[in-house]
């Protein structure tokens, strides 16, 4: 009995003291919170919103760069192949995008992403050409299912990776983690121990790129190939013409025995999926662009409770929703009071005052807050309300 009493008795005072101190700090800083002041000095501390500081921007090709980030103290680590969502201010506006982590867990605790600037791409161009060391970025914990199966389950004895363009990024993360000789910062992992016991995975990488100089991580891939860690089949559009999947079995005769992972443009992934399906095989894919939002005129508005309504391109969402009997927050109804702001989870809206389009891509841009009184649907819209 005394032991059960003792435990809380020894723990409680310090815990209670901490609680009390926190409450005093909160009472001293209201209506802000202590974190608002601490953030001025230590934005990466434990307990803060997850952030990171860019430490290095290293060019890989003409239009790609690796960004080395020191994550905040609460970064929980990742499995190679996973991605991190990054929030960065471009022209003063917070934008969120996902980028694959291109290293395994590193001894120095840093994380790295490699970004390819896509034409007209807002965030990718900013990261590649404008981002400067010292910049604070916002992070979410790593996520994603594009990871190697647990080796304990006999998982990756024979693997095939098909990568195109920047689609190499999650795969290079896995490879660097498996073969640390190509990367000094990598920890020795359990998987490595397996390799030492002659259970090293047999890996083929088919990498597609527009040209050799445009190919991100090509030196790493070639080094891995020379060392015998992987068998590399590099296909360059300018040398070999466009990739034809019909050739796949000539490069990989034992395709049937392999587990396929693929990352690249949607067209390639779709074709590969069809190709494998025909042969009764499965393929694990990673899409960099899940859904595209092409603004149109009017569209279906969906609410959180599943209610939907059709709105035309000239009627404010507020009016359309109220006409349909949805209870909406509102105020001035003319765009000045911000009393009608709602989160747009997915879709596009048009500002009726100047035609400006605002889009939200599910899982990519996070929700975007829009004023419903001056916004009309510009395509299907999902409102979190």
């Amino acid at each position, binding site marked *: 009995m005394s032991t059960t009493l003792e435990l809380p008795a020894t723990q409680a005072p310090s815990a209670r003291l901490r609680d009390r101190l926190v409450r005093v700090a909160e009472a001293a800083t209201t209506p802000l919170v202590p974190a608002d002041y601490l953030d001025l000095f230590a934005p990466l501390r434990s307990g803060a919103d997850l952030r990171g500081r860019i430490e290095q921007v290293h060019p890989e090709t003409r239009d790609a760069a690796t960004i080395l980030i020191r994550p905040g103290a609460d970064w929980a680590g990742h499995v190679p192949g996973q991605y991190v969502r990054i929030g960065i201010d471009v022209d003063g506006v917070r934008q969120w995008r996902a980028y694959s982590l291109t290293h395994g867990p590193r001894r120095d605790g840093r994380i790295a992403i490699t970004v390819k600037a896509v034409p007209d791409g807002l965030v990718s161009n900013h990261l590649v050409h404008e981002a400067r060391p010292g910049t604070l970025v916002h992070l979410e914990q790593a996520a994603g299912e594009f990871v190697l199966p647990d080796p304990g389950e006999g998982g990756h004895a024979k693997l095939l990776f098909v990568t195109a363009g920047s689609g190499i990024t999650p795969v290079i993360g896995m490879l660097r983690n498996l073969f640390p000789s190509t990367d000094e910062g990598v920890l020795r992992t359990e998987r490595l121990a397996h390799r030492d016991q002659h259970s090293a995975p047999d890996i083929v990488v088919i990498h597609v790129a527009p040209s050799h100089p445009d190919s991100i991580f090509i030196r790493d891939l070639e080094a891995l190939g020379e060392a015998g860690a992987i068998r590399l089949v590099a296909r360059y559009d300018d040398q070999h013409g466009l990739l034809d999947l019909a050739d796949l079995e000539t490069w990989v005769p034992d395709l049937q025995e392999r587990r396929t992972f693929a990352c690249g443009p949607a067209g390639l992934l779709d074709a590969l999926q069809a190709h494998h399906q025909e042969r009764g095989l499965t393929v694990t894919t990673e899409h960099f662009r899940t859904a595209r939002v092409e603004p149109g005129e009017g569209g279906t508005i969906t609410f959180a409770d599943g209610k939907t309504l059709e709105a035309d391109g000239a009627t404010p969402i507020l009016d359309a929703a109220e006409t349909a009997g949805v209870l909406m927050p509102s105020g001035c109804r003319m765009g000045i009071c911000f009393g009608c702001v709602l989160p747009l989870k997915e879709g596009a809206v048009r500002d009726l005052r100047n035609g400006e389009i605002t889009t939200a891509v599910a899982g990519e841009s996070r929700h975007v*807050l829009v004023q419903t009184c001056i916004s009309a649907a510009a395509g299907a819209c999902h409102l979190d309300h």
Partner: protein
Amino acid sequence: MTAIQKKSDNPIAHLTPEDIEQLGRELDAIRQDVLDSRGADDAAYIRKVIKTQRGLELGSRAVLLFSVFPPAWVLGTAGLSVSKILENMEIGHNVLHGQWDWMRDPKIHSTTWEWDFATPAAQWQHSHNQIHHTYTNVIGKDNDLGYGIMRVDEDQRWSPFHLAQPLWCFLNAVFFEYGIAAYDLDLGATIKKKKLKDPDFQRRAKEVLAKVRKQATKDYVVHPLLSLPTGSFLPTVLANFTANTVRNLWGNSVILCGHFPEGVETFEKRSIEGETRGEWYLRQMLGAANISGSKAMHIMSGNLSHQIEHHLFPDLPSNRYAEIAPKVKALFDKYELTYCARPFPQQVYSAWHKVFRLSLPNGWLATTNVKNAPQQLKLLYAMSTKGPKVRRAAQARLTQEARRKEAAKSKAAEKETVAA
């Protein structure tokens, strides 16, 4: 002033509906210019202001830990006053207007911000953004015209309560944050309508009380207690009270300057039925007054020194008002309208002058001279103590007499000019 529609020399009579719509388009273009160039520099500006304010607050509060020493008290109190003013004016007011929502930073957003002021942000947003900014200076719709405790327009009916309005105005200035909280709660009207039991009112009242309690605990309990070890408990209480009062007086003065000085127009309720965007703009142009002055004046007033620009474009970032002011002024000139801008002391004087002037019934001052003073005082006494019927009759007489006098005066002036 009198509602613009009733004026003999209506200052917008010369504008055709087409003029007004053209004016609206030109203002839209000014807005669009700012939207197109809004970006990283603006974001950096507000972040810098926030960082400066928080640093200043931390520093001042640290100094106040030793406020038993007079120099520390003076320094800490001055710093805290400036910090509270910045927090309310250039940061709080403008963030709550949604001026920085475009940054999509959840920490600097109109839907998440809470300020160092008694009234809860959401309640203020309703009465300020939704009511005042939409119905600016429309008599009977915009409660900001006198906040329900003052008469600031000839067209607002006089009642004996207004005799003491200079006192109300002064008390409201000193306890501004509580005045605003009561105002946002619609306390006066709720008491009058005997709706104190209304569940919605009760919920909002609870929110206000919770906020007031937290604010007061911070300023008058927690920080003084932290100062206790140096024996600075009472000096810290006093420092916080002083800083809150300085902020109250300053905020109140800036706000009086925005709509009450002479030269600002008011509007009849009828006039805004079916109002077009151009007409709304025009009402905002004439319904606000600017304070001319230095950059420091603009920042410390939360750029409400550019009240006209703010009322035209309440959602544009405040740091851009100064830059568009000349363009807006040029439109006033082009459309032959009066841009009401004066230095701070003049605007404050003008507003207070109006508060004093309108504490008396219309026409009373104009019809009073040394000879008839006793009768006039008797009349005023009757108007104040007898029922509304007497008041109405006396008012009619006063108005008529004042008008007759006015007419005689202008005739005399005419004769003089003819003679000259």
